[in-house]
């Protein structure tokens, strides 16, 4: 099978954009925060916890050069259990795509295009994402590499321009209710970083797989820093109101008013939403379809991409009939438990299997 090759930097761009997507739209971690002023601590803790876990995934990938996480889990856990793990991962990626599509559709229809049917918005973005994925990972990666700067620029504009309504006083006191209050938002932050397990699908395609150790850490740190800055800006502008907002970043952009002339620039975060969502959907639709072909032992992954995209559109309307269902799932701990449960179990299982294998083989060599 023809393997697309991408550089570690392009892989990083895809990961960063995927992580920024949900935060620029709904920012569930911020919503889950009891005391908004702790946002930077939450972001910091999230990053510190996420880096080693994701590095484990990369290390696993390096252990099995040329194989995706779906393929080597079948080697490690045996055909049957390996396939089950593979199916769970495929489901997880599919579900991420579905959730992202629903978040985008729900937000666009809540914020601006109130009368537009959600299916049209989701359909167009999912079609774009799927057609990029259909053209192969290289295309997606290059789009992401170029889009990253635009997205970062949009996000920075949203962070900086409301400066005149920011009140630094809103950032105090820190940790007024102790560390325990940080637990739910930190798990939320980490659970979104766990989407990076998709790096297990990317590694065989990266031209310098060793580089991914460094670059996946960069991805987490960059995305995390941007999130912290966004969170700080939102907290300074909205103070105690911040966790009532359904789309904090969008609301932040609505506060921009410079000289009563440069205002009404909500299109900026919306541009970021749409670019991020397109790239995130393409990445996860690609991962889910390729994963599924590898679980089922089919030859060509590309064939499944459009059907997968169609399924994502349909499921996003089916799973999350109402915006409230989505918000409830994302901000009341449901998603955190679900995402962390799946990914941590799989990662620990695979690591344990690798260690066991090494022990056995080490023993064999020793004899």
């Amino acid at each position, binding site marked *: 099978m023809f393997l697309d090759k991408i550089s570690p930097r392009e892989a990083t761009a895809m990961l960063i954009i995927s992580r920024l997507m949900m935060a620029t739209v709904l920012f569930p971690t911020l919503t889950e925060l009891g005391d908004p002023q702790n946002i930077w601590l939450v972001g910091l803790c999230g990053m510190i916890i996420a880096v080693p876990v994701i590095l484990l995934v990369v290390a696993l990938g390096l252990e099995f050069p040329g194989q995706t996480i779906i393929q080597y889990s079948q080697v490690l856990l045996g055909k049957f259990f390996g396939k089950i793990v593979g199916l769970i991962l495929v489901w997880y990626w599919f579900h991420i795509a579905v959730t992202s599509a629903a978040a985008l559709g729900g937000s666009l229809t809540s914020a601006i295009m109130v009368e537009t049917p959600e299916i049209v918005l989701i359909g167009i973005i999912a079609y774009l994402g799927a057609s990029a994925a259909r053209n192969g990972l290289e295309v997606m990666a290059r789009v992401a590499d170029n889009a990253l700067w635009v997205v970062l620029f949009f996000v920075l504009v949203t962070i900086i321009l409301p400066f005149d309504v920011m009140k630094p*006083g809103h950032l105090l*006191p820190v940790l*007024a209710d102790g560390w325990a209050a940080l637990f739910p938002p930190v798990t939320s932050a980490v659970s979104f970083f766990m989407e990076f397990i998709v790096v297990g699908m990317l590694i065989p395609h990266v031209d310098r797989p060793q580089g991914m150790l460094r670059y996946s850490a960069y991805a987490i740190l960059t995305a995390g820093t941007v999130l912290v800055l966004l969170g700080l800006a939102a907290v300074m502008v909205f103070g105690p109101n911040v966790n009532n907002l359904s789309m904090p970043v969008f609301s932040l952009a609505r506060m921009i008013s410079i000289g009563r002339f440069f205002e009404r620039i909500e299109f900026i975060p919306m541009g970021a939403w749409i670019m991020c969502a397109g790239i995130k959907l393409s990445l996860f639709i690609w991962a889910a379809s390729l994963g599924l072909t590898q679980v089922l032992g089919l030859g060509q992954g590309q064939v499944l991409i459009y059907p997968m995209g169609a399924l994502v559109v349909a499921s996003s309307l089916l799973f999350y009939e109402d915006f409230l269902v989505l918000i409830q799932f994302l901000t009341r701990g449901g998603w955190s438990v679900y995402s962390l449960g799946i990914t941590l179990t799989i990662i620990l299982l695979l690591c344990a299997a690798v260690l066991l294998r090494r022990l056995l083989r080490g023993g064999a060599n020793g004899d």
Partner: protein
Amino acid sequence: MEPMGTRTKIGLIALLMVVMLTGCWSRRELETLDFITAVGLDHAAEEGKIQVTVQMAKPFAITGSVQSSVQEKPFHVMTATGYTVFEAVRNLNSISPRRPFWAHARFIVFGEDMARDGLQEALDFFDRDGEPRRTSYILMAQGVKASDLLQAEFSQEPMPSEGISELLQGTRLAQSTVAAMTVNEFLQALEGEGIDPITVRVELIPLEEDFAIGGDVLRDEVKAKTRMTGSAIFKDDRLVAWMNRPQTRGYLWVTGQVRSGIININEPETADAYVSLEIVGSRGSFKPQLTKDGIKILVQVEVHVNIGEMQQYIDIRKDPGLWVSIERRLTQVVKNEIMAAVTKAQLFGADIFGFGAEINRRHPKEWRRLRENWEEEFKRLTVEVEVKARIKRVGLVINRTPIRK
């Protein structure tokens, strides 16, 4: 990848046409909209209902020829009622041929009756809906209904909402006698701990029946105009008291918001004439100190003034002691203004300064204890004021022209 087949190309074009030719769903054509420039909220005559009054721009009156723009009012006012703000807002559609568009509302003004009963029921629409903005200002109309206030006009400004916005900016910059909050700040003060909202007071001044206004304004005479002085203070979401101009400036000193303004003091030598001082710069902050005797708030204000006017001749060069004397009097005025504001706020238990919020920031542990009974603690706390006043400049003359007798 293989080149795209003709059939695929045609298919793609057809797909594109399906998307494009149906038009845009959520489009809003300019000529179907009616731009709301100001909103007023009152209790409706019918029990339990809310009355929403909007002032809207009449685009054809603004863009018309000079003659027509002078004779025709460039705005109109509409009123609708409902059990909720949103219902009332939608009811506007049944009397307005154009769809009201909210994104350009400069301010929301509340009638006193409604504000006294609490704004809880009135505010959510302006936060939740996608069109109104959190950057609009919140105004309180003293003694009148908001709907009356929106009818008032200015002789120099054809759009009253524009006039009121300019008035607000003007009084803030030139006098520092109004404290205004945007929807964003107001909602934060409502939800935040240890802080209550304060916002600007607007009064309606009725004019004589046949009051003739000069200039080119030919349309029917202006019946009332508005004045912006002082502020309205809130306990939770209820308006509890009005603050006059010195009290409001007292609040602004404490929170460091004084921009400019005039302070009159008695002329130091004879004390039977005034010296007007123009504030050219100020800094203000406060620090809570938790002592055994209770909570003490240390307010520190630094004020720079220019001499703006002297009613009597004194030789200001003669004796630096004179400057000190002027500065001392200025210091006293600032202290008096601050204490007037504090006394008023304490009387109503409305922590407009955010003393509680500052205690939370600096001493979160103690705040956990104090927050339960904050209203009582706030009424009891003592405020100490330190003012540093400096005369910076004297204007184009050093001493005024003396009058030889």
